[in-house]
């Protein structure tokens, strides 16, 4: 069958969503933007490529500093005791201070140290990278975008620029990654621009669990910023229902928590989603 050109031109004022991806921090990062014709004032495809390059450079620089998988990283030298925190770089100390603050706020459910005492900021670094990338995209003048780093999402604006259409995120079923459990609307003037999911479904037991921390296999948190969403999702997997209640009472967040038997707990925003 011969392909014919559409009788209606594509430039109907609704730019098409375009995505670019790159690999970093052991996962894949996707940047999605509505891309239109230059005359419509929308970013063009090469501008998406430029924005992706900025985000990728930022992720790579942070990975080089904070990755425990790289023997030559500053984090690895700290872990081996070759470097003290006092002598570490300013950004290393800033992230450590931020992680420590979260440990206090979550009453220990989130912690920057592994059980063996090694400093491990990986629970914070990806969220930090997403936050910094978002700041850079806004500084570049990009208002409408969706950044997804391995299942943690930060959005700005709308997939249809100028509209109130939200970026709708689907939440994966931990029992079957090919299906969704529900959706959640992000951005477009709503209260939450960030969504993070933690659990043991993908990377095994990479979350250090507290005593009661085998309750949830997957926890999704929506918040105004990605670090809060990411840290609290990790903390609730680790701390179970008490931490879920602390999070719901203390922060402006929406939470969806799934137990091993498939039963779910959800705050009102997820119940009326």
């Amino acid at each position: 069958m011969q392909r014919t050109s559409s009788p209606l031109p594509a430039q109907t004022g609704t730019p098409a969503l375009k995505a670019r991806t790159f690999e970093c921090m052991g996962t894949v990062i996707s940047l999605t933007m509505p891309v239109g014709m230059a005359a419509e004032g929308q970013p063009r495809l090469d501008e998406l490529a430029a924005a992706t390059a900025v985000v990728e450079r930022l992720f790579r620089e942070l990975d080089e500093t904070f990755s425990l998988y790289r023997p030559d990283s500053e984090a690895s030298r700290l872990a081996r005791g070759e470097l003290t925190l006092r002598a570490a770089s300013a950004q290393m100390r800033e992230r450590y201070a931020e992680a420590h603050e979260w440990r206090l706020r979550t009453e220990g459910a989130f912690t920057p140290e592994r059980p063996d005492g090694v400093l491990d900021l990986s629970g914070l670094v990806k969220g930090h990278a997403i936050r910094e990338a978002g700041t850079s995209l806004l500084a570049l003048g990009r208002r409408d975008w969706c950044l997804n780093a391995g299942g943690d999402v930060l959005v700005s604006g709308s997939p249809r620029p100028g509209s109130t259409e939200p970026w709708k995120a689907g939440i994966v079923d931990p029992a079957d990654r090919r299906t969704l459990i529900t959706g959640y609307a992000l951005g477009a003037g709503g209260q939450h621009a960030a969504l993070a999911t933690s659990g043991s479904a993908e990377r095994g037991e990479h979350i250090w669990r507290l005593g009661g921390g085998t309750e949830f296999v997957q926890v999704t948190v929506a918040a105004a910023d990605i670090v809060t969403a990411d840290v609290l999702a990790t903390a609730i997997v680790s701390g179970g229902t008490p931490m879920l209640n602390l999070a719901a009472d203390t922060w402006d967040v929406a939470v969806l928590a799934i137990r091993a038997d498939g039963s779910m707990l959800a705050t009102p925003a997820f119940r009326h989603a």
Partner: protein
Amino acid sequence: MKIRGLAAAAFASAGILLAGWQAGTQVSGISTVATGTTATGTTGATGTGASGTGSSTASGSSGTTGSSGTSGTTGSSSSSGSSGSTASGTYKGTAVQTRFGPVQVQITVANGKITDVTALQLTNTDGKSIQISNRAAPLLRSEALAAQSAGIKTISGATVTSNAYLTSLQAAIDAAHL
């Protein structure tokens, strides 16, 4: 007299309930220094002043209960002061500051018994009070699926490894947007 005492006691318990509602989560295993939330929780226990709006008999005696249980003020009395055990109506405590903004506990009394305790947020914008609670409750899969309509633009799940990405829903969405 009985009713005023009852109301004061009720507000004290309602205040404690609010404190529990806020501070009840402070029991998660690890013993580190608690932060701000405990402070707002305990202030709830002092919210005991009353401004009765029900049809209670307003005798001005003060109920001395547990915390600073001073009785309130303007009860708009309408019923006769015959029996103290038949008080009905809704009563509000004094506002306390929480992360939701100023919050007031409201109790509903029917025939002298508290039938309901709710936390109200006092919005400054329109003066209306709305019921608040962000607590998680059970969600059925069928309810959740109702929200899963079309238009999904991105996928959130536990961290996808580079290898797992290839077969993920996000990869399919990204491929559609290439």
